[in-house]
């Protein structure tokens, strides 16, 4: 689009008739000079159109064009390359942009602002980038911007992650960069201060919001089938909020409490909650919903809180069996073919193939005290194994290391506990677990729990599950951004403009040369008989 820095200079075009007037007596190229015009018949007799006043030199048009060009140069013409203007719009699609204000989400409001702003710029190429998921890029033309909004994936809107803006120094300097945000994320605001942004479209006004920021559950070791629940609720607004906290196990309401949360603070709630194997989920909800309803609810899967189902095959040592039965997180299944999470095979009783995590307790024929001081393998860290004294340990001598297994405890000549390197995991125990000197040690139960933990691959006694969201993610109060950017003016990478003045001056000079050539040619040629 052509723009002029000093358009008043165009008034100089009014002088163009003066140039024609100055050429009224000049001779043009198509004028034939004759020595005696009185010899020529008058127009009426020659059937020609007479014109008493001499026509101006046709070259007046060329000279007028030169003057017009120079006037245009004084007006400072610039050409904006609107046809190649590319705008990258960085969309803050974080959780706070889903805040509902005036019946519409902030992101929707921001898209409406973007519609108007883009239509004014005349840019033909716009690319949307998600700050939550950089892989999401949507390009569309301005005239189909609504289609582009419809193409914005919902998965991005509900991603629930933190914005990941690009590195400012790596942003394409040939493009304009716009930012759509509500200014609630301080990290994003800091990035906006350093990024080469041309414009920021800020939307959102509300600042009061309460959110469930943590829902955690761990098995209650004192009560079978129960869990200890920890909830954290934050009020990120400027005034106290009174909300009702409801906790559901599946769809069944199990806990309800009315909370008054001071502004800019959080509150922890702890309670015991029975859980069910059939409904392995927890849901905490704050009511009534506020502007950002998406952070009022937090879901937690509790499938891991159920006791471990164990099948025991063979004649296991009695102390071992007792220890297994007394483990608070283990449920012995008497049916060998029932569904189970772990199998215990004693005295090589089972000839079937390994169908899951298996703990094999090998029989001891003539157990001897361990001669060398055994040690735990460093590869099993950070599992906390009990410290076993050598005098407590008895085992058969010269037991070979099983194939495809690694040593967990013992020595290379006398392995005591080994673990298979294949899956499912198989733990082989060559210790005498019925030896009274070992059974009567407090470390015995810790050894049994460690064997179970190593077999299933997760700690049973210290197992906890939690779902949380960042407190900053739920902060919806807009922070002030760069005023100039939010008001539409351009600070960085303005639209590329081409100064047309040199081109016009060159064109005028070229026309002047042409005029001089024509004048010289006219001066050289016979005045009366050139071109006739």
């Amino acid at each position, binding site marked *: 689009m052509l723009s002029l820095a000093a358009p008043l200079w165009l008034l100089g075009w009014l002088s163009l008739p003066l140039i024609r007037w100055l050429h009224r*007596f000049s*001779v*043009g190229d*198509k*004028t*034939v*000079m*004759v*020595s*005696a*015009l*009185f*010899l*020529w*018949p008058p*127009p009426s*007799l*020659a*059937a*020609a*159109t*007479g*014109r*008493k*006043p*001499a*026509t101006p030199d046709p070259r007046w048009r060329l000279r007028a064009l030169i003057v017009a060009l120079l006037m245009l140069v004084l007006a400072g013409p610039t050409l904006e390359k609107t046809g190649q203007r590319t705008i990258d719009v960085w969309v803050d699609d974080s959780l706070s942009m889903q805040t509902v204000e005036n019946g519409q989400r902030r992101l929707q409001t921001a898209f409406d602002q973007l519609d108007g702003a883009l239509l004014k710029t005349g840019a033909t190429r716009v690319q949307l980038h998600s700050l939550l998921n950089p892989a999401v890029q949507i390009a569309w033309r301005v005239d189909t911007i609504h289609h582009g909004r419809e193409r914005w994936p919902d998965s991005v809107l509900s991603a629930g992650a933190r914005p990941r803006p690009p590195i400012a120094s790596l942003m394409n300097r040939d493009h304009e960069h716009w930012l759509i945000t509500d200014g609630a994320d301080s990290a994003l605001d800091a990035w906006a201060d350093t990024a080469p942004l041309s414009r920021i479209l800020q939307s959102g006004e509300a600042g009061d919001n309460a959110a469930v920021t943590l829902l955690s559950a761990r098995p209650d070791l004192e009560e079978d089938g129960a869990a200890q629940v920890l909830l954290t609720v934050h009020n990120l607004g400027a005034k106290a909020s009174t909300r009702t906290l409801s906790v559901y196990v599946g769809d069944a309401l199990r806990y309800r409490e009315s909370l008054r949360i001071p502004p800019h603070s959080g509150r922890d709630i702890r309670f015991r909650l029975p859980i069910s194997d059939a409904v392995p989920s927890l849901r905490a909800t704050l009511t009534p919903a506020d502007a950002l309803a998406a952070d009022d609810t937090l879901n937690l899967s509790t499938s891991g809180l159920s006791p471990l189902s164990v099948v025991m095959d063979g004649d296991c040592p009695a102390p071992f069996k007792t220890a297994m039965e007394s483990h608070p997180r283990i449920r012995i299944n008497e049916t060998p073919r029932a569904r189970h999470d772990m199998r215990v095979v004693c005295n090589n009783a089972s000839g079937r193939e390994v169908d899951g995590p298996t703990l094999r307790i090998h029989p001891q024929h003539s157990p001897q005290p361990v001669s060398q001081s055994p040690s735990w393998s460093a590869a099993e860290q950070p599992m906390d194994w009990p410290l076993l004294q050598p005098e407590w340990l008895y085992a058969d001598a010269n037991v070979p290391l099983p194939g495809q297994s690694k040593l967990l405890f013992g020595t290379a000549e006398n392995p005591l506990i080994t673990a298979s390197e294949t899956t499912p995991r198989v733990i082989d125990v060559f210790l005498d677990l019925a030896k009274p000197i070992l059974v009567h040690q407090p470390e015995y139960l810790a050894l049994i729990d460690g064997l179970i933990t190593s077999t299933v691959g997760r700690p049973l006694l210290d197992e906890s599950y939690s779902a949380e969201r960042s407190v900053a993610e739920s902060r919806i109060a807009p922070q002030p951004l760069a005023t100039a950017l939010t008001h539409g003016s351009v600070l960085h990478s303005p639209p590329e403009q081409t100064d047309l003045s040199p081109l016009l001056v060159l064109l005028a000079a070229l026309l002047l040369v042409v005029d001089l050539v024509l004048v010289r040619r006219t001066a050289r*040629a*016979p*005045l*009366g*008989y050139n071109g*006739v």
Partner: protein
Amino acid sequence: MPARTLTHPLDDISESELACLARVADPLLAGRPLLNVGQRPSRLRAGQGYEFLDYQNYAAGENLRNIDWRATARSRHPQLRRFRDEQTSDWHICLDCSASMTIVPGRKWPLAVQLAAVLSYLLLHLGHRVALLGFNDRCTVLLPSGRGRHHYARLARILRDTVPVRQGGGSDLLQCVSRIAPRHQVIVVSDFLAPQAMQPTLRRMAAAGCSLQLMHIVDEAELTLSPGTSPVELLDVESLEGRTVTLSDDVLQSVRQAWQALRADLSQFSVKHGIRYTACNAHAHWKTVVMQHLKGLQTSHA
């Protein structure tokens, strides 16, 4: 487009050629045969003129107009009045320096310059006083009367420096009238492309007793315009008046007829007023034109 000459037209005239031409032209310009070849005429010799010299007995063949009847009555024998030969009278070369003389470069103006120079040389060779007047819409060149070889050198230098205007001006011979005394000899070298071919001025000069000779340089190239169907803006090179004309065959024919009528009218005017009139083409050689003019003078004297 004719080739541009880098030299002046006077460069084509050599001193030897002028000397040879002078021997031929002297008797023609004097009005009678030369008595002694190689001798210059005396100022006190009888001849054509207005100043009385003496009486002489009438002989057969003499002009009866010169018989002095009073003297005849006194001497009882026909007496003729003789006058002082006016070969050394004052001549004025009026050279047309208007723009029409150069409208086609290299044609009319070079010949005009050469004719002015040659005629001046011939007249100066006979001892006449020669003045040079150049005119367009005013008198642009003025060389007062003089005689001798030095005067010819000055005249030739002025002719070399004289350049006609390219546009504007006019062809007004009247500008020279005030500088020419009555009964002087006048040679006008021009294309006579002016309304009525300068006849009013010529008539006025003849009435003042001036002896006129006209050298009319014509150039048909001025009329050789290519016919066309589109209108063409014609501009008079002197008056700068414009006129849009379609160069049809009819128009070009009418222009040619008007031009020829102008020549015929000027020729008839000259005959009527006893003016020696010589028309020559612009491409003719100066020597041919001068000889044609001098032969015409001899014929008129006879």
